[in-house]
């Protein structure tokens, strides 16, 4: 991959030396975390290929799209309505920021103690290492936390940023605000792409993005089965890839995988030994290649059956009604769907507590691991509400606060193993 795409990366202005280092780090990590797994479904081959080509083929597709006059719009949050980008002929890419990178560069503009995800995206941009970032004509920020909100002001010095104001509550006036934000976003996307969103194009893109959500819901449903037919790590990977892969191809590939998983379920074939503890992970997003905690959980003999994360259920759990007849009506439907996301930026966030209790029952989970990035006040503080709700229902909980470093792996392994010993 390195040789084939070097010219492309160079033409994009990447820092090739730093980029090489990043690409060299990924295969050993991926090999250890992913390829060493037992009983993987054959359908994972496509997703292995996508990771192998992470800065190759997909970037080439984006560059070709741009060569035809198309626009690429980057996002950091599941609140950004990708239907709208797609309806305007743009490609929507979730920018990952899941690795400690360019910290020295990032710390020129950011405080030292800040959320690792924020530091990562700033580090990626300032050190010109991410070809996705460098492909973006515009990035979309949002106000889901103070750190991101303020960091987007800085990021705007380096790439055009459009910020959507996500409300903090879910009252009627907040819905009204959010609807107007979605409307403004549509106008901004039209301006950026030079294309008009039509009733037909929006109807079509709503159906296509719903198709992606439905296939992910189908996969989630299969994980309710005992034994689970796919590992949590593989599922997380698919959910991460969902954010940047070609929508139609991705939907088709996950569909094929689900066909295989259905057969596995019928045959009673699982990925982990019978009776492995079933875990739900919840908390802050786990962006590629942040697989640290899921890897520790699953290599300690448990299986993750659901991710109540932005890189998980929050991304696909509700669909947009497909019977909208006007732009205005569809914008309403879209706004409503996205405001249903249970992010810790809302107060109160009862929906998340109820959801977790329901999930534990539906997925027959033995315990929940609450994993939050360091310095993430919304999720770290909300852990108390979650703990209280889960205690009332007798659901065991392990709370973890960590970052992208590996130095706490031994400590985390002890805590996770002890948690599994406790709930077995």
């Amino acid at each position: 991959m390195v040789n084939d795409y070097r010219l492309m990366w160079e033409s994009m202005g990447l820092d090739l030396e730093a980029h090489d280092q990043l690409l060299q780090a990924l295969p050993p990590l991926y090999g250890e975390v992913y390829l060493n797994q037992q009983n993987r479904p054959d359908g994972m081959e496509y997703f292995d290929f996508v990771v192998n080509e992470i800065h190759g083929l997909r970037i080439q597709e984006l560059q070709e799209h741009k060569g035809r006059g198309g626009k690429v719009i980057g996002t950091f949050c599941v609140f950004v309505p990708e239907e709208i980008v797609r309806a305007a002929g743009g490609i929507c890419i979730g920018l990952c920021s899941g690795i400690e990178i360019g910290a020295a560069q990032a710390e020129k503009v950011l405080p030292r103690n800040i959320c690792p995800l924020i530091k990562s995206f700033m580090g990626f941009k300032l050190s010109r290492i991410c070809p996705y970032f460098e492909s973006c004509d515009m990035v979309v920020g949002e106000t889901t936390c103070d750190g991101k909100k303020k960091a987007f002001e800085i990021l705007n010095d380096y790439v055009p940023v459009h910020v959507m104001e996500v409300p903090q509550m879910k009252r009627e006036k907040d819905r009204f605000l959010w609807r107007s934000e979605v409307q403004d976003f549509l106008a901004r996307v039209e301006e950026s792409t030079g294309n008009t969103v039509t009733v037909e194009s929006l109807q079509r893109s709503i159906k296509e993005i719903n198709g992606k959500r439905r296939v992910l819901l189908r996969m989630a449903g299969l994980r309710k089965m005992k034994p689970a037919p796919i590992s949590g790590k593989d599922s997380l990977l698919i959910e991460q890839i969902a954010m940047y892969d070609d929508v139609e191809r991705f939907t088709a590939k996950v569909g094929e995988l689900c066909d295989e998983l259905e057969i596995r379920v019928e045959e009673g074939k699982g990925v982990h030994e019978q009776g492995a503890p079933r875990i739900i992970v919840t908390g802050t997003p786990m962006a590629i290649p942040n697989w640290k905690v899921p890897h520790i959980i699953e290599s300690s003999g448990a299986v993750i059956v659901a991710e109540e994360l932005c890189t998980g259920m929050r991304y696909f759990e509700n669909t947009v009604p497909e019977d909208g007849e006007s732009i205005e009506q569809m914008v309403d439907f879209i706004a409503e769907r996205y405001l249903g996301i249970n992010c810790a930026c809302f107060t109160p966030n009862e929906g998340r507590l109820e959801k977790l209790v329901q999930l534990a029952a539906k997925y027959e989970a033995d315990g929940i691991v609450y994993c939050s990035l360091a310095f993430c006040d919304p999720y770290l503080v909300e852990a108390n509400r979650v703990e209280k709700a889960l205690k009332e229902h007798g659901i065991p909980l392990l709370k973890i606060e960590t970052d992208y470093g590996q130095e706490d792996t031994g400590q985390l392994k002890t805590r996770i193993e002890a948690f599994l010993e406790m709930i077995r």
Partner: protein
Amino acid sequence: MLRAGIDIGSRTVALVVLDGLKTVRTALVDTGFNPLGTAREMAALVPPEVAIIATGYGRHAAGAEFARSVVTEIKAHALGVSRLFPEARTVLDIGGQDMKVILLDGRGGVNDFQMNDKCAAGTGKFLEVMAGALGYRSVEDLGRDSLQGNAIIKISSMCTVFAESEAVSLLHRGVARSDVGRALHVSVVERAFGLLQRVGYEAPLVFTGGVAMNPCIVTMLKEKIRGRVIIPENPQLVGALGAALVDCGKDGV
């Protein structure tokens, strides 16, 4: 039947050999710079046919080599303490690099637990670093002297590195080192108390790990919880004892 448990920690490696429920041999050495090598030497003290169960940070390395199975420090301490003090409800373990609180279920199992985050704040390592910073020859000297210190200052930094510079700047201001030492011990006890409260501890409390031999910490902890603190005869051996009690999946309590 003989059974053995080995606790491979960051500072010490402990071994306990049981005949039935009776301890027939114990050993305790510094971990040194080659933890697995030290553990291997300790394992050589055990007849080859005896199953060794490993716990502590080095458990998986031992498990890959000579140990029959592995168990976390949490479960090992729960088993060890429950064996020594069946009435115990809570364990506080402060070792070389971590601090943990375990809520016992009264049958040798764990109801809940809390552990410090990745930093060394409030652990044996923290006190060792501070003993060096204050010019004591050993952490024992620091503990002894700190008992005589006055409660006139407070160390607010929890981080080992920051607390060290805070301690040094206090010395420069002319504060007696016994007073600084006392304040450092208070900060460890405060941290332990925070963990105890987080888990909702119940009496009786058993205190294990190397730091349980520090008289200053023990005195302050008793004052803080206003209750009894039980210290095992060999607080550093409890993890290894608990591991020896794990009989290949069948708990020995």
